[in-house]
């Protein structure tokens, strides 16, 4: 799988291919090792229970990685060399949560031999609470368009 979207036929309002991810404690533990972030709020259930959060939460960067997955699924290598994110973490994702990752093209503009595609992006949980929201931008070089 490279890019799912035809970058020559993008439209404002077009939805990006949605992905869904189930958050598990096992996955959080794997991410802690991979990212070297061993903050106990993520991996120590006894510690986390005593905090106002009441239990462990996923790393925000793990959930943000899912937005990047949606963007690379949509735009392929263009995302890797011309992608940008500007997001806010709105609420924690917890083990057991089912996270829906969605995006929609908000604007397309031409600028200096490139097409800049702006997308609204949202991660929400099974209660439709926003976990992360913000904007993703992809710069597509004109030479890569037909």
């Amino acid at each position, binding site marked *: *799988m*490279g890019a799912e979207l035809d970058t020559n036929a993008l439209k404002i309002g077009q939805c990006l291919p949605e992905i869904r*991810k189930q958050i598990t404690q096992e*996955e959080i533990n*794997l*991410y802690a*090792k*991979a*990212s*070297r*972030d061993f*903050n106990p*709020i993520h991996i120590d259930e006894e510690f986390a229970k005593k*905090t*106002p959060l009441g239990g462990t939460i996923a790393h*925000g*960067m*793990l959930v*943000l*990685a*899912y937005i*990047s*997955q949606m963007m*690379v*699924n949509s735009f*392929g*290598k263009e*995302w*890797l*060399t*011309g*992608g*940008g*994110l*500007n*997001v*806010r*973490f709105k609420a924690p994702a917890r083990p057991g949560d089912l996270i829906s990752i969605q995006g929609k093209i908000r604007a397309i503009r031409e600028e200096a031999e490139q097409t800049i595609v702006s997308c609204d992006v949202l991660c929400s949980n099974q209660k439709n609470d926003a976990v992360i929201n913000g904007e993703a931008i992809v710069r597509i070089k004109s030479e890569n368009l037909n």
Partner: protein
Amino acid sequence: MPEPTKVEYHQLFAGFEFPPQNYALDNPTVSAYMEATKETNDIYRNEGLVPPMAVTALAMASLGAAISMPPGTIHVSQELEFLKLVKVGDTITCFSKISRKQDRGSLHLMNTDITVLNQNQEKILTGKVGFILPAAGKIV
């Protein structure tokens, strides 16, 4: 690589630069990241590329290794720009600098700029990270 000495929040100021941290993006490091995030796009495996968020995770690790964050610290915002392809086998150097530090009531706001270079000194990623930290002894 030895862990750097952690800096306490009260020692930080706008303009403070952390010692750069180097990471080798070897196969085990990248594979562990892809397994943890259940990354399945073939573009990475077929072309030996590294997910940009794996680079970001290590840039964040360099910050975590450098700052002593109090319990209750919240990562509130993130800006990122991916500039160049990163390949398995590359070595990256992560630079971080405090761009803003502000006390607001019982909370501290702190923004940090991050820049990541590859072994050829090419800029591959830039970003800004926003944190809210509780005042001493308070957990938000």
